[in-house]
C-alpha cells in the first residue's frame, strides 16, 4: 500500500503545476490586473507605472508565473499584492477559523444524513420517506446566503439571541463567545451539507435492500430493526467513509458564501477579497491548497476504503 500511496502522491506534483498554470493564465484573460483595480483618477500615469513595476506586473506573464513557482517550491507562498502581508501567515490565521466552522457542521450533517437516510430507506415509498426526501429537496434548492439572511433576521434581529458578525466579540476570545458566534453559520452549513449526504445514504441503503444477504436475513425472520442495525447500516457506512475523504477540500473552500454573510474571518472571505482585486498570489495560494486537498482527499478516500473493507486490495486498483 505504501508504494501505491507514494505513487499517487508523486502524481500530485505535476497535477498541481497544471492546475496553477491554468489558473494563472485564466487570470491573465481578464482585461485588467490588480493595479488597475486600485487605480483612481487622481493617480498620474507615472504613479501607476511605479506601482505596476513594484509588483512585477509589467514583466511578461511567463516570467511572473515562473517567479511565483520558484518561490512556491521553496515553500514560500509569497505576499498579497493588496495588503503586502505574508499569504502563509494569513492562511495560518484563517484556515483554523474555517475549520472550526466547517468541521462541526460537516460532522453534524453526516450524522444527521446517516440517521435520516437509513430511516428513509427503511420506510421506502411511505410518507416518512417522502417527507425526508422533500426536506432534502428543499435543502438542496435553498441558496445558503438566503437561508443565512433568514436566520440572521430571525435569531439575530427578531429574537436577538445570537450575534451575527464575525467569530468573536471584540477582545473576547473565550469559548462561550465563540460558540454564540458559531451557531448561526454552523446551522446554515449543516442545512447546506446534509441533503446531498442524506440522499446518498438513502440510495445506498435502498440498493443494499436488494442484496441477497437481506433476502436471506429476512428468510431467517430478522426484523427490519435488526436488519438495519446489524447489516445494512454497516455496509452503507463503507461508501460514506469515502465521502469523508472527498469532503476534505471543503475545509478550505466549503463556506465561502456563509463566511461572507457572517463576516467570518476564514479562508472564504480571504479568497473572495483576493478574487475581487485580481490579487493573483492569494488566488493561486488558496487554489493550490484546495487542489492539494482534492487530490489528497481522493487518495485518502481510496485508502480509507481499504482500511474499512478488507476485501478491497489497492494493488488491483492501482494500475
Amino acid at each position, binding site marked *: 500500500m505504501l508504494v501505491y500511496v507514494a505513487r499517487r502522491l508523486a502524481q500530485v506534483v505535476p497535477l498541481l503545476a497544471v492546475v496553477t498554470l491554468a489558473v494563472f493564465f485564466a487570470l491573465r484573460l481578464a482585461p485588467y490586473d490588480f493595479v488597475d483595480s486600485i487605480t483612481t483618477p*487622481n*493617480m498620474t500615469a507615472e504613479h501607476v507605472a511605479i506601482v505596476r513595476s513594484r509588483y512585477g506586473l509589467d514583466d511578461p506573464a511567463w516570467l511572473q508565473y515562473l517567479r511565483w513557482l520558484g518561490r512556491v517550491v521553496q515553500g514560500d507562498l509569497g505576499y498579497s499584492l493588496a495588503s503586502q502581508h505574508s499569504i502563509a501567515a494569513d492562511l495560518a490565521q484563517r484556515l483554523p477559523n474555517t475549520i472550526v466552522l466547517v468541521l462541526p457542521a460537516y460532522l453534524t450533517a453526516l450524522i444527521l444524513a446517516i440517521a435520516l437516510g437509513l430511516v428513509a430507506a427503511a420506510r421506502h415509498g411511505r410518507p416518512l420517506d417522502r417527507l425526508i426526501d422533500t426536506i432534502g429537496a428543499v435543502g438542496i434548492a435553498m441558496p445558503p446566503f438566503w437561508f443565512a439572511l433568514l436566520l440572521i433576521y430571525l435569531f439575530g434581529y427578531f429574537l436577538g439571541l445570537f450575534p451575527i458578525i464575525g467569530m468573536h466579540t471584540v*477582545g473576547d476570545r473565550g469559548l462561550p463567545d465563540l460558540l454564540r458566534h458559531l451557531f448561526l453559520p454552523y446551522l446554515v452549513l449543516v442545512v447546506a451539507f446534509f441533503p446531498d449526504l442524506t440522499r446518498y445514504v438513502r440510495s445506498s441503503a435502498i440498493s443494499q435492500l436488494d442484496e441477497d444477504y437481506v433476502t436471506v436475513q429476512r428468510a431467517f425472520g430478522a426484523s427490519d430493526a435488526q436488519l438495519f442495525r446489524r447489516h445494512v447500516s454497516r455496509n452503507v457506512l463503507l461508501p460514506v467513509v469515502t465521502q469523508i475523504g472527498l469532503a476534505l477540500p471543503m475545509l478550505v473552500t466549503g463556506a465561502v458564501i456563509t463566511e461572507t454573510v457572517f463576516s467570518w474571518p476564514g479562508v472564504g472571505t480571504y479568497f473572495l477579497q483576493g478574487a475581487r482585486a485580481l490579487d493573483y498570489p492569494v488566488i493561486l495560494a488558496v487554489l493550490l491548497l484546495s487542489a492539494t486537498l482534492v487530490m489528497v482527499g481522493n487518495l485518502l478516500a481510496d485508502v480509507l476504503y481499504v482500511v474499512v473493507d478488507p476485501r478491497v486490495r489497492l494493488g488491483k486498483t492501482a494500475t
Partner: protein
Amino acid sequence: MKPAARAILAALALIGPLFAAGCAADDTSPAPPDQTDTFTFAISGDPSSLNPINTGDRWGLTTTNVVYSPLARVEADGTVRNELAESIEPAADGRSVTVKLKPDVVWSDGEPLTAADVVFTYTNKAVKDNGNADLLWIGDQPITATAVDALTVRFDLPEASAAALSNIATETYIIPQHIYGDVTDFSGAELEPLALGSGPYKLVEYQRGEYLRFEANELYYGGAPAIQHLVFRIVPNADSVKTALQTGEVDGASVSPSQVADLAGAPVDIHSYAQGRVGYLGVIEPRVPDLALRQALFFALDREEINLAAYLDPAYFENAYSILPPGNPYATTDLERYDQDVERARTLLAAAGLNPTLVLAYAASNAAQATQATIIQQQGAAAGITIELSALDGTALYEEVEKGADAPFDLFLGGYIMGIDPDAYSLLFRTAASANFFSYSNPVVDALFDQGLVELDDARRETIYGDIQRAIAGDAIFYPILDSFDNLAINQRVGGVAQAKLIPVYHFEDWSKFTLA
C-alpha cells in the same frame, strides 16, 4: 475489528488533528473592552495600507485620520482648518510656504512633535517609489521641506503653483521620526510598529479580516476623546451591516439609500453629506465625433429623473451641472446645463440627418448605475436615439475606455472624487492626461489649465476655471449627473456627530468628539 468501528476510527483519525488545529486558534488576548464605552463602526474591508506615507484607499485613510494628524485640512467649502499647524503663510511670489506648528503638541508616547518630524514625513512622501508622491512634485522636481527652527517648516516649490500652495499642508499625515527614523523603505503597506501618531486614538489591536481596536489618546492636542474605545469592525456584506445596525451590534456604518428605508424604526439616525463626487455620463469623443449628436443626446436627458430613479429621494443626492461637484467653491452654474429639451434634441438630429444607435457601458455590480442606464436608454429613445446597454465589470470598463476610438462602446457611466483644488480636474480633461477617459482634446481648455495652475490671485483663478467649465460643457463630451451623498447610519446612543463633522472619504473629521449616552 468490525467494519463500522473501523470506519469511525478511520474518520476520527482523519478529522481529529484538523479539529485540534481549529481549536488551537483560541489564543489568549487582551481583556474585552467595556461595550458601554465603545463606539463600533462597520467598515467593508481591511485597509489596503496602514502606512500614512502611501495609503490611498477609503479605509486606510479613515484609519490614518484616527491615529495621525495632518498640518491642516481643507473643508468642503474650500476654507483651510489648521490642525498641527498654527499658521500657514504662502510667500507672495508663490514659491514657498512657511508653516508654524502649534507648540506643546506631543505624540501618543509623550514625545514632542517638531519640525523635524514634518520634514521627515514630507521628504519620504516625496520619494516616488514610496507610491504617493504626486502632490509633492511640480513638473519633474519635488517640493522640498526644511526645518527653520524646532516649530517652523519652510516648503520650497521648484516653480510657482497655486494648486501646490493650497495642497501642500493638507492630506499629508505626519509620522514620528523618533519611531520610524530607521525605516529605510516606506513603500510597504505596514510600518513597524504598526501605528503611532498624534491623532485622537491609538491603534492597540488589529485582527486582519475582523477588526481594528483603538484606545483614546489622552495626550491628543484636540482634547482627550470622551469615548475610551473605538472599534472598526470589518463586515463585507451590506445586508449584515444593516441588521447589525438594527440590533445595535455596530453603532455606525455607511448605508445605501435603499437601506435607509429599511432602517426606519431602528435606533439609528441617518446623516447624509455631500461627498464632493461627480457621477457622470461620459462620451468617448472619437467614437461620437458629431457635436450635434452629443448635444442632442444631452438635451434628451432629464438628470432629475435619472437621479430620483437611482437614489430614491433628493435627500441623498444633488444634481450636478459642471465638471466640479456642486459644493466646490470654484463650481459655476453659468454654463450650458443641458436641461431636458426633447424637441431641441429632435431638431438637432433632424438637422444633421441622424438616426443614431449608441452603446452605453456601466458597471454591472453598481445597482445605481444599472438604474441610471435604463432611464437614460428610455429618455434617449423618446428623442429618437437608440441606446444599447452593456454591463461590464467596473475595472474592466475603465480598461476598455482607454482604447479610445477602439473601445467597444460609445458612452459610459462613471464617477470621481478629486478634491477641492480645481487643478486636480486637469487629470481628467487635459489632452492625453492620465484619467482623460473621454479621449477629449481641446487646446483652449489645455491653455486655461496651464494659466489656472500658476495664477495666484483667487478671483482670477475663479474666472479661469469658470471658463474651463463652460468650454467643456460646450463640447458636450461630459454630462454631469449628480453628487451622490454618503449616508451614515449612527446609533442614537452616540452623540457629537455634528462636532465630529462629516467629511468625504474620512467619514469624520475628528473622531474624538463623539459621546455615548
